[in-house]
Structures are given as structure tokens and as C-alpha cells.
């Protein structure tokens, strides 16, 4: 991971840099995703770049490692393999292929594999590769065949199959047209079984000519355009990472919906989540004796008869105004049902009507689904162009799934952007921004303050410009998640201590101070009255004359008081500390410490006595 320091330049001096890992999906799918890294291990791959630049092989290993670790964090059920071709030694399941070395079979990546890949990096890594595998003859056909076997040997259901070839040789078989032909045949076999083949071609002297050979090997790009093959070879690690990251994950729709413009005008669109909060994973239970995972089964039974209850023997209820209101389980669902899933166009508004603070959840991305409704892409594209041209957004009512209540979204047009290497950095489509209802907006009384003087404003402006940097959304790793995985890694590999994680969202205080220099004091002199200390606590508002003994309010309530409150429905008036105390007092176990949970617990406890 790049140092955050790297971004901490004034932006004029800054170069384009792209960095970061990719997190995986939380979609429920049948089958596993699989990815095979097929890496050229010929001598050419080990040639170091100028000025000590890493070799192509080094860069590849770095990328493989970053994919491994990101898979572990975000999609540990994906299967990944690492296969080398053009080796001297051979190692594959039935040893039926020469010069193909299966380093990692298709499996879930784990701590050991990450270490293995670490071991292949740098000078030592190159030495290790030379010792164990060496460089020899090349037959891409055999390598592809071997990979095909890896896929077919897997007994699990595979939902997405991808193979990435990393090489810097555009003509791997020289003049041997038979080998070329074999490779083509095998590649078409793979493609036919649903494997997508990508080329991650890297720089070599004289350039990389895709049309010589590899154009027949790789899968055609999604949009049937020429874009895929026009890609320049990668000469930077960041470019390579970016390119791999863009392909490594299967795009999955959260849902496919119709965007209805009017009766009979339905455009099919797919909804994609492009930013999802990654959390620490939840713990799993293990059997103490064997450390094997146990499964948990939850069942509901009748307290008196002890018999297990069927779903039909259970109803749902809520209590309001001291009354329990009961519904059938399917009624609970129908209450939430307003209409069939879909997006309904309400109209358009100028972009400035979209308020910055109208944010309630992460946006989703919309892209047409030509496979569902033919003609969608054209209409979608026209809508996108016109919305951008007129600087408007489309307001839609959105029901994203069956029995989901409606939300309103602003469809904001987004133009496609590509970087210098013609890699897409922003896809074309609409971002759907979820808008708040009246219930979601809280009334906040704004305190009145005096206005800042122009001098003060100017001083602050100076401070601001001293601390300018170029923000990039992928520059900050989550220290909590990273620390958690380093800990697990250390335990899994029996390391003495976990690797250090750098907290990238910590302010670089020293650098900031240094940059600001005397500005801070100048600003303070302008703004703060003499002797003002913003860090001191404001004087306590109410000082009681009595000694500290009376400070804590009485936390106890008698049972009678509690019962009276319950009878009058005024239990909610008690404060959380008092409720907690009451729970403790009567030995009531609660599910949580939220007020509602405490109330529920108390009510349930005393129900029998009322």
C-alpha cells in the first residue's frame, strides 16, 4: 500500500498515481468465482528495469499478492491459482505437461499462500524462482490445457471463471506455427467453457504487438469495440494493479430493474454497488477440542409443550400505546409492499437542486441491460447525453426489490473517463443518489455567532492553501480492518507479532506544523482574545452549592414505582441509567443497552406480575 505521504505534496508537483486494493462482493450467488494467474517465467520476465525498477516478474508477484490479500479480506470464498509457464521444471497434477509449473492449485487463498508469493519477490525471489522452476521452453497451448484441467478438476460449482496471462513476450513460440495453433485451439476451448481470458501484457524493448499472436488468444471485449486491444502495455506497477483490479472481480448487479419513463417505455437497467462499507467479519464458533467450525441451528419451540413450532404457528406483534397489535407473518410483508420493483421517472430537476447534505446511504450505479430489453442501451445513452447537456438530474421513485418500500433517487449523469493508458477510470452511466424523507431530516438549531473579519478569513485561506493535497478515494486503508487481518495473519502463521499497520488516517502532525510555520500563531493572534485556551473545558453551567456527595442523582427506583410507571405507560420517561440500574436490581438480562431494549426487557419481566 502506498504511503499516504506520497500524496502529501502540493498538487502542482504531483504525478498521476493510482494505487489500492479492491474489496469484494457481499452478493449472494450460487457457485464460486475463480481466477487463474498464468505467469510467464521466461528469462525476459526477470530483466530489471532502468534505475532499479522492478522486473516484470516482480511487478506481477506484487499484483498477485495484493489480489490474494484483498480476496482474503473481501471475498475469501473465491478460488485463485498461480501457474507459471516457460519454466524448465514441470509440476502439474498428472505431470502430463512439460514446462508448466503449478505453484498454487485452484483454492481459497490463505496466509501461507501470501507468504509463498512474498518469497518470490525481489532478488531473493528471482533466485528462488530460478532454483525451483528455472526458465525453459514455452508452450502456451500446454499451459492453457493444464489450466483447463485445473478448472475441470474442481468439484465445486464455479460461477465465474477468469484467466489472466502475464507476459512481456508478444511472440512466445517464435516461428513454431504448430505451437501457435495449439495455443489458439486450447484458448478457444477454454473460452467455450466460459473462461474469460485476459492479457496483462507488460513492457519490453520494441513494444508489445498484440496482433502478432495474442489477439487470437484473449476473449473479445464486452462491448465488441477495439478498446481492449488498443491498450498499451503496462510499464508501471500501479497501472498493472489497476488493470488487474478492474478485471479481477465479476461485476454483479444488486438487482435488475425496469426504468419506466411512461406507460410501455421500459428501459432495463442493472444496479451496481460501487462503494460498500467493509466491516470486520463476524466471528465463527469453533469446537474447542478440534478447532473445527460448528454450525448453529436456531429453533423456536413452545414454552409449555416443548414442541417445535412451524412458521405458521408464529405471528408477529408490536406494542403501541400499551396495546399489543398482532399480524400474520405475510401481512407484515404486504404492509411493506407498495408496487412491483422498478424505477419510475417522476421528472427532472436542475443539478443545483441536489443538496449536498441530502445523503442517507451510499449511492448505486446504473447501467443498461441490453440482454433484458433490446434498445435499452440506446435510450439510456440518449438520456445520459441529454441530462448532461441540460445539466439536470432525473428524479425517480425506486423500489429496489420485492416488498421493499419506495425511496426516491436522483439519477445523476456520469461521463466516461479513461486515463493515459486508456484504462477506464469512470464508467458511463447514472449514479443514483438516495434522497431523504421528512423523517430523515432533524431539526438543528443553528447557534448565532459573529461574522469573521476579512483579515481573519484571509489568514485562514493561507492556512488552507498550505495544506492542499490531492484527495484520492482509494488512498486510505481502514486501520481497524487492516489491524484485524494482520492479527489473524500473525496467528495463522505463528508469527511472533503481527506486522505493523500504518494508520493512514492519522494527521501527519509534524508535517502540518512544519508547513504552517508561524501561520498558526498569526491566526491565533488575529482570532483569539488574549489568554484564550480553546482546549480548556467551558465553565460548568450550574454549580451546586453543596458538596460533591450529592452529585450523583439517585439511580434507584422501587419496584412499586416501576410497576406504576408500567401501568401508566410512562416507563419511557425514565432515563437510560435508571433503567439499567433497575435491570441490574431485578437481575433482568437484556439483549442490549439501547433504551428500547431495556424497556422491552423490563416490560417482559414484569408482565407476569401485572
Amino acid at each position, binding site marked *: 500500500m502506498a504511503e499516504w505521504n506520497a500524496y502529501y505534496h502540493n498538487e502542482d508537483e504531483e504525478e498521476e498515481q493510482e494505487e489500492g486494493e479492491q*474489496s469484494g462482493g457481499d452478493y449472494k450467488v450460487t457457485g464460486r468465482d475463480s481466477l487463474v494467474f498464468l505467469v510467464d517465467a521466461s528469462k525476459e520476465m526477470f530483466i530489471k528495469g532502468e534505475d532499479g525498477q522492478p522486473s516484470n516478474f516482480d511487478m506481477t508477484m506484487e499484483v498477485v499478492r495484493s489480489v490474494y490479500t484483498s480476496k482474503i479480506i473481501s471475498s475469501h470464498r473465491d478460488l485463485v491459482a498461480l501457474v507459471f509457464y516457460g519454466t524448465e521444471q514441470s509440476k502439474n497434477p498428472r505431470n502430463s505437461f512439460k514446462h508448466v509449473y503449478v505453484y498454487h492449485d485452484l483454492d481459497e487463498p490463505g496466509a501461507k499462500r*501470501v507468504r509463498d508469493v512474498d518469497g518470490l519477490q525481489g532478488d531473493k525471489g528471482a533466485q528462488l524462482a530460478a532454483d525451483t522452476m528455472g526458465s525453459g521452453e514455452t508452450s502456451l497451448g500446454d499451459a492453457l490445457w493444464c489450466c483447463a484441467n485445473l478448472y475441470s478438476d474442481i468439484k465445486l460449482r464455479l460461477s465465474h471463471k477468469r484467466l489472466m496471462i502475464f507476459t512481456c513476450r508478444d511472440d512466445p513460440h517464435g516461428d513454431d506455427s504448430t505451437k501457435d495453433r495449439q495455443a489458439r485451439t486450447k484458448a478457444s476451448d477454454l473460452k467455450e*467453457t466460459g473462461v474469460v481470458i485476459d492479457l496483462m501484457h507488460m513492457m519490453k524493448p520494441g513494444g508489445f504487438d498484440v496482433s502478432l499472436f495474442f489477439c487470437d488468444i484473449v476473449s473479445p471485449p*464486452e462491448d*465488441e469495440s477495439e478498446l481492449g486491444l488498443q491498450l498499451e502495455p503496462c510499464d508501471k506497477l500501479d497501472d498493472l494493479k*489497476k488493470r488487474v483490479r*478492474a478485471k479481477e472481480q465479476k461485476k454483479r448487479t444488486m438487482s435488475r430493474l425496469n426504468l419506466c419513463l411512461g406507460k410501455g*417505455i421500459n428501459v432495463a437497467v442493472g444496479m451496481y454497488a*460501487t462503494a460498500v462499507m467493509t466491516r470486520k467479519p463476524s466471528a*465463527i464458533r469453533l*469446537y*474447542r477440542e478440534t*478447532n473445527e*467450525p*460448528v454450525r*448453529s*441451528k436456531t*429453533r*423456536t419451540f*413452545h414454552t409449555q409443550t416443548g414442541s417445535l*413450532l412451524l412458521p405458521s404457528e408464529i405471528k408477529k*406483534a408490536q406494542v*403501541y400505546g400499551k*396495546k*399489543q397489535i398482532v399480524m400474520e407473518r405475510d401481512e407484515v410483508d404486504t*404492509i*411493506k409492499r407498495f408496487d412491483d420493483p422498478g424505477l419510475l421517472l417522476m421528472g427532472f430537476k436542475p443539478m443545483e437542486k441536489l443538496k449536498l447534505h441530502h*445523503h442517507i*446511504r*451510499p449511492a448505486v*450505479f446504473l447501467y443498461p441491460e441490453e440482454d433484458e430489453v433490446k*434498445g435499452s442501451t*440506446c*435510450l439510456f445513452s*440518449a438520456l445520459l*447525453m441529454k441530462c448532461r447537456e441540460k445539466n439536470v438530474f432525473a*428524479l425517480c421513485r425506486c423500489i429496489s426489490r420485492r416488498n421493499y418500500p419506495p425511496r426516491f433517487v436522483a439519477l445523476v449523469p456520469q461521463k*466516461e473517463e479513461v486515463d493515459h493508458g486508456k484504462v477506464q477510470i469512470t464508467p*458511463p*452511466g447514472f449514479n443514483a443518489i438516495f434522497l431523504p*424523507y421528512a423523517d*430523515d*431530516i432533524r431539526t438543528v438549531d*443553528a447557534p448565532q*455567532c459573529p461574522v469573521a473579519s476579512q483579515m*481573519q*478569513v484571509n489568514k485562514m485561506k493561507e492556512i488552507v*492553501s498550505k*495544506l492542499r493535497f490531492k*484527495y484520492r478515494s482509494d488512498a486510505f486503508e*481502514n*486501520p481497524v480492518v487492516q*489491524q484485524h487481518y494482520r492479527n489473524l495473519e500473525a496467528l495463522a502463521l505463528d508469527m511472533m507479532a*503481527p506486522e505493523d499497520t500504518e494508520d493512514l488516517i*492519522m494527521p501527519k502532525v509534524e508535517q502540518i506544523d512544519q508547513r504552517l510555520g508561524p501561520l498558526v500563531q498569526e*491566526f*491565533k493572534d488575529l482570532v483569539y482574545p488574549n489568554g*484564550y485556551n*480553546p482546549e480548556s473545558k467551558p465553565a460548568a*453551567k450550574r454549580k451546586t452549592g453543596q458538596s460533591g456527595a450529592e452529585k450523583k442523582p439517585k439511580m434507584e427506583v422501587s419496584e412499586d414505582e416501576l410497576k406504576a410507571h408500567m401501568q401508566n405507560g410512562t416507563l419511557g420517561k425514565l432515563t437510560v441509567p435508571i433503567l439499567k440500574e433497575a435491570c441490574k436490581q431485578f437481575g433482568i438480562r437484556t439483549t442490549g443497552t439501547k433504551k428500547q431494549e431495556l424497556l422491552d426487557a423490563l416490560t417482559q419481566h414484569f408482565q407476569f406480575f401485572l
Partner: protein
Amino acid sequence: MDVGFSMSNSAPGEEPPFELAKKVIQKFVQRQVFAETKDELALVLFGTDSTKNPLDQDGQYQNITIHRHLMMPDFELLEEIQNQIHPESQQADWLDALVVCMDLLQRETKGKKYDRLNIVLLTDLNTGASADHLDVIIENLKKDGITLQFFLPFPVEEDEEGGGDADRRGPSHPGMGKGLSREQKNSMDMMKHIMLSLDEEDGLDQIYTFTNAIEQLCMFKRIERRPMSWPCQLTIGSSLSIRIVGYKAVTEEKLKKLWISVDAQTNKREDLKRETVYCLDDDNETEVQKDDTIQGFRYGSDIVPFSKVDQEQMKYTHDGKCFAVLGFTKQSLVHRHQFIGNQVIKIFAPKDDEEWPCRPSSGRWHELKMVAIVRYAYDRRSNPQVGAAFPCIKQDYECLLYVQLPFTEDLRQFTFPSLENNKKFTPSDTQLSAVDSLIDSMMLVEENENGEQVDMFKVHQLPNPAFQRHFQCLHHRAVSPGTPLPPMEPWLKAALERPEVISERCQAPLEEMRKTFPLTEVEKKKKVKTSVGSVDPARDFRILIKQKSRPFGEVCQQLTHRIEQLLSNKNTQYYMKSITCIQAFREQSIEVKKKKNTLTIFHLRKYIMIGLEVFWDLLVQGTISLFTWDCRISLKSFLP
């Protein structure tokens, strides 16, 4: 509430004021019950046949009944209003009733903390009220800080001060009947006098009609939460810190209560018990005790036992509450669609800080179009975030808006095919102009005659329809158990549709769109094989022949082509595959009784020509009896 006999009078075809007043109260109480506010409420009826109030002495304060004392409203109250409150046959002085209410408030709020005291009078003012002590009453209302609201069957206009002429008001308003009685006119004057004494400017704004009130109360109350203040320090580097206070300003509000499971027979929660058991993943599903399990985590394929204690000790820790500036960046680099989390926090200068010299630092840089990137931590226990603080300058206040931004791990960098560079999907000029006029016809923001912008669809003023429907159904089930759930309220249904003006205006442009953009739903079919593939050509060939979707000859040709391809690899494994193809070809040929296999033989001959001796050897080794049926040709004759 006035339940006296005049409240049941109404013109033919109109609902009597009594029924309307009852509806107002029902709706109001409903809202209170579901909003679960801690507001307390009492109900005093006047015009009742009996008398029940503490001021009942010496024939004073007659026909006034305290129906319910000051307490939180509940369904019991709703049921009572539904079933026990009827029109009665007496009349009572509404000013007396007001005094009873004031007395009740005074008695029953003793020792309670409260924000506000309010008396709502629902009456037709059709009683001769005695103006005695009117000044004392007003004085006491002022002294106790009690506010008043009147709900009447008819509207009150401001220009009628001093008597009022009923005819000028126009007879159209329901409830007006034949105009106002002398008592009503008299009472009206007194009411206005009281209201204007309490609030000279806007006193009359607190007088409503029943019908308006019902309309406004049909929505359930929006969820209101008092924002908690979050005092902190905004820091820039080690020595510049600015005191701030944050409030959650926008957040996705959820219903406070979850559904609980109850036994379907008894409707009792305690008749159900949920239990979680753990079992091994073996054939017997052997159960293990919870105490015999430990905590662990997945690290890819590894499963790592990791106790709670260890986890706690090794986990990421930080210094707690924090709002520290990491740097400033161009606002254009922080993309709206990358906002994450589910809230927006407004950051102000603290209220009580008298020494605070000026508005928070926000105003000082907004001209630069820059935002601050900050590290935010709510407290020691919560995870730190990275986020952006946007300066926000409003007419009457300035603040910072804080929104969380994604971490690297949160982003998914999907790529999608280009739309503009794809000729297949490029819209024509006609199509573009159709979209153009559609957008023009569907603009929700327009300028009115005064040049002001009017937004006809403000989402942030709409109550969450899910909550509205939820409460509607709960209410229905509570008061009419055993009946099916009601349909959605018409106003709610309408609020979720396109505004009518827009629907009408966009008809023609939509018709144009329909004409210019052909849209056809793709029928979902099972994938059908259309050609002989390279992986298992023999199987594909058999399937295709069976399907009969393609001419026999064509399929044969495809297979032949594949065989050629396979053979050109000059590799034993491919030869074997070719042979299975030839087998398939033969067996299918027999089935369809086509004897044109000479074609193949002709081709085979070609292979032999190009020197596939190894293949030929395999062929003739006898594993296949290739030409055993009616076209017996000596194989050897093909050899070169």
C-alpha cells in the same frame, strides 16, 4: 371538547360538528400514540348530562366532565373516544370549561417537568358564555404560560372585528348553516379578545376549522428525534484547535420497534422460546455445548481461533473523540456518489462559548472551493473514519457539513463498456431531440410569475410512506381486529405518483419517444447450441443432429471443420479426439440413413496426404470399425 346538543346540529348532507370534532381528536391521539411522544394529555368534555370536576360547587361549573386525567395517550383512550363519547343534551359555558382545564393543568403538572402547556377547545361556540372575570382568566393564562388553540366548525376572518356580519362570509362554508347565532357572535368576540390578548400579532392564527385540521392530521407524525450535541475540537496540526459542536442533521431514520414473535394461538410472546444449538458438521450433526465452543475467524482458507480476550488486546485502539484535519483538497475531487455511511453531521461553533471570537472556520475558506479531509472518531469505542467537511454558508448560519468517505477496501472499481464509442447504440438526432423535449416537458422546477423558482416535488417534505402505511395498518388492526388490512390511503398513493401537471404535459413527448425508440423485451430462452464447438465436438454434433434445427449437411461440415482443426495440431491427444468425432459422425449417419460419408472419406484422404501417418495408424488399429457398413472401401487404398 364540546359535546352539547348544538354540536349535533348540521345542515342536510353535512357531517355534524360533533363528528368532525371527534375525528380531529382521534387523529390527534393516534399520532401521539404512534409517535410515542412523552406528551401527556387529558380530555375534558362539556355539555355533558352529568358533572364531574373538582370545581363543581354551589351549582357552578355544571355539565363539565373530566373524562381522562393528564397522562400519556394510549389505545384505551382511542377506544373510549370511539365507543364512549356521544353527543349529549346539555349545554355548558365554554369559558367555564376553559377554567376547568386550567385548573386541571395546574393540579396535575405539579412536580412534573414540562416544556409547554396547551389547551385545545373544540366547540361551535353556541353557548352563552359569561364574560365575568374574563380579565382574570387571561391574566392566569399568561401567568402560567398556557397557550390556547380553537377548533371551530366555521372559519373566522380577521376583518370582522367587532360583531361581524354573517352574510359577508359567504354561505358556502360547511358548518355555517344559516349563519351564526347571537350567542356564537358574542362568543366569537370573546374568543378573539382572549387570543389577541395572548398574542397580539398572530393570536388569530391559532383558530382552525375542523375540516382543515382533519386534512392536516391525516398524516402520521414524522419521526422527530432531538439531536444530541457532540462537543469536540477541530484540530489542524498540533497547536491549532478550534472548539466545535456537532449535530446529526440527516440520517436514515428507522422505526424504533421491531416485530416480536408471538404464539399464533395465544398471541403471547412468552409462550415462544428460541434456542440456538451448535453442532458439528458431521453426518450425525453431533450437538456440542456452547461452553465447548470458542471464537474464531476466517483468514482466507485458514480458520484461526482467536479468543475475545486476545482480540480485545490486539485490536486497533485510538485516542478517542477526534475531528482532525488531514489536509485540504479541491471540492471537485470529492465525488458525491462516493459518500458513504448513512448520515450527515453539521458542525457549529458551540453555543455557550462566550469567548468564541467568530463563526467557525467554515466561512473562511469556502471561496477557495476547498474541503477539509478529516479524521473523525465519535468516541473511543467507535471506529475512526475518514471524511470530508464541506463549508456551508447560509443566510442565517454557517457550518461545516461532515460526510464519511470510503476506505480503499470499500471501493469496487467496475469497468463498463463505453457508450459513446459504440456505433451500435449511438442515438440518432431524432432520438436525441425526442429526449430533449421529454426532459423539457417533465421539469419539476419552474419559475412562477414572480420569477421565483417553484419545486413541485420536494422529497424531503414527504413523510416516509413506509412509516405512514405501517401505522395505518397497525391502527386499523388495533381498533378493528379480525378484519383485513385496509387499502393504502388515497393521499399517500397520490403522493408517490407523478404530479398531475407533469403527467399531462409529457403525453405528447412520451408518444414521440415510443415511436423513436424501439424497445423489445428479450425472451429468456435456454441456451441453444447452434454450432459444433471445439471442446466436445462429438457431443455437440450429436445434439445438433437431434435438434434438427440445422440442415444435416451443414452440421456435418462443421464437424469436419473441427476434425481438420484438431488434426492440424499434430498431437496424439488431438488425434484421439478426432477419432471420437469420426465415430459420432458414423453413428449419426447410420441413424439418418445418409450414405454421403464419402465426403468425409474424401477429406480423410486429404489428411493422409499431408502426412498424418500416426493418425492413420490409430484409425486402422481396429478400435474403430469405420467403414463396416454398406460402403466398404479398402482403407489401404487411401494410403499414399
